[in-house]
């Protein structure tokens, strides 16, 4: 067991509580101690519920002492992006508009984690209505990167990335509509899983774009993500878009090796205009994967810029439609940047939106044909490491829009195709900022990504490094 329980992985701490090596109260107190230490600098939490968390931990310990375990995450304290409805709790969605919104239902993903025994630490900061890639939030302040607090966390799951990296929570739910799990994972040095569209129920999760929204975890490791996905995935009567396909044993998948696997690396687009340190990390990662038994093969993809454009058209239109009532009634309550993004969707003709939706099937078929014969594709999450908060602040930096366009370039095509992608920490820059790469898989083949990610993490220690308090 780690000397500090909060530094343990999710899988390790769940086992330690189950075997009563450590109590839920000790673990919860350790998390709360780190939260108290880091929160003033990171702004990662929206709400901290220390007393309720300790009371729930005590109840979990009492139940376990009586031989009653609720499930594989019994007594594990977690916090999640503040967009998952949790009955009786305020769910702000990072917004002023929902500052006082009290949920009357609990999201399916969250309920399944509760049913597995988790307890609530509080809620995590996010970009307003999950509509922004940097982590800025004019209402509640920017979330800061624990590796360097002058730098962005990425968004929109900004608090999730920051809190997991600083070991304030063992894992956190995020959501990924245009890169919102993978970017914080990349910039903050944690593991993040964007699931296939339909793999995890979205019932009770704040919507941004019904066609693109996905629910997924951020955690220390691929193994942790596998544990969480196995608990959350599967059909849900509350969400008819949730797939009825069987849920594989993701934990078993993480025990597989890389031997015999083919990993594709594109010849263009995802390798163009990379920051030299991201390029170096990509080369080093390919070398490690080869050393562990994988074969690296070149793949030639269809034009990915068209996928990016189609993603933008679908996302902007659906977001505008969802927010139209508040855009009419409460425009003053939006942050300026989020309102501007929402307004963009008003100018997309219905025919153009439907063309973008109709093209999705052929575009996915063409992509899958291009990567046929490979088990996954390896590409950067973004061409650069975390930018500074100042240079990516749209309100105050002339360069900000260029930064935003650059950091979303490699994530949006994957959202349009609805594919799963696992972002894993793969190295650090000279200045100590993490660099993540994403493994992209076939639809509903999260198991393969988790297998590759776990094997890579057995051969490296980037995912185990912890930022130091200043």
């Amino acid at each position, binding site marked *: 067991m780690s000397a500090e329980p909060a530094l343990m992985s999710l899988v390790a701490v769940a086992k330690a509580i189950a075997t009563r090596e450590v109590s839920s109260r000790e673990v919860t107190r350790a998390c709360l101690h780190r939260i108290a230490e880091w929160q003033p600098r990171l702004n990662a939490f929206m709400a901290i519920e220390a007393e309720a968390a300790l009371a729930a931990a005590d109840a979990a310990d009492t139940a376990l002492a009586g031989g009653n375990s609720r499930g594989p995450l019994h007594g594990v304290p977690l916090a999640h992006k503040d967009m998952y409805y949790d009955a009786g709790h305020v769910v702000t969605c990072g917004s002023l508009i929902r500052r006082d919104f009290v949920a009357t239902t609990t999201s399916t993903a969250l309920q399944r984690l509760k049913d597995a025994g988790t307890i609530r630490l509080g809620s995590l900061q996010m970009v307003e209505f999950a509509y922004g890639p940097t982590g800025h939030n004019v209402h509640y302040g920017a979330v800061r990167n624990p590796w360097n607090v002058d730098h962005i966390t990425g968004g929109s799951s900004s608090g999730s990335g920051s809190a997991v990296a600083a070991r304030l929570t063992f894992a956190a739910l995020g959501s990924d509509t245009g890169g919102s799990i993978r970017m914080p994972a990349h910039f903050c040095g944690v593991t993040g899983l964007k699931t*296939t*569209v*339909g793999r995890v129920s979205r019932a009770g999760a704040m919507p941004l774009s019904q066609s693109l929204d996905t629910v997924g975890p951020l955690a220390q490791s691929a193994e942790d993500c596998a544990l969480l996905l196995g608990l959350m995935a599967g059909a849900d009567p509350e969400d008819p878009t949730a*797939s009825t*396909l069987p849920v594989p044993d993701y934990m078993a998948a993480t025990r597989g090796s890389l031997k015999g696997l083919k990993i594709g690396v594109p010849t263009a687009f995802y390798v163009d205009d990379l920051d030299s340190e991201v390029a170096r990390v990509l080369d080093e990662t390919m070398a490690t994967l080869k050393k562990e038994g994988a074969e690296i093969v070149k793949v030639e993809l269809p*034009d990915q*810029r*068209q996928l*990016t*454009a*189609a993603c*933008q*058209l679908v996302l*902007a239109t659906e977001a*505008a439609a969802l927010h*139209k009532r508040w*855009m*009419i009634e409460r425009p003053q309550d939006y942050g300026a940047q989020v309102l*501007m993004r929402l*307004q*963009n969707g*008003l*100018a*997309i*003709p219905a025919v*153009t939106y*439907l*063309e*973008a*939706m*109709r*093209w*999705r*099937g*052929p575009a*996915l*078929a063409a992509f*899958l044909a291009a990567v046929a014969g490979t088990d996954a594709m390896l590409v950067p999450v973004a061409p650069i490491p975390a930018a500074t908060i100042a240079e990516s602040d749209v309100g105050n930096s002339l360069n900000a829009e260029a930064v935003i366009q650059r950091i979303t370039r490699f994530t949006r095509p994957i959202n349009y195709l*609805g594919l799963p992608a696992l972002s894993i920490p793969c190295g650090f820059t000279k200045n100590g900022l993490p660099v993540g790469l994403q493994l992209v*898989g*076939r*639809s*509903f*083949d999260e198991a*393969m990504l988790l297998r590759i990610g776990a094997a890579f993490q057995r051969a490296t220690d980037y995912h185990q490094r912890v930022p130091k308090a200043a």
Partner: protein
Amino acid sequence: MTKPSPKEIKAMTDVAGVPATPEVAERIANSIGPAFEGFAPVAGTLPFDLEPASFLLVQTAKVST
């Protein structure tokens, strides 16, 4: 496919019931222009009987075992 002009965007936002000022319409035109340009090679080329649900067919047909 051409991207909408600020004047056209002004009319569209009026019809949508969320009117934009001329300045906002100009900003929207600049912001969404690249998406229209990027999608231009696809727009107007899709077969007649292609429907959005074909995405689900492709998605489930390609499940790895």
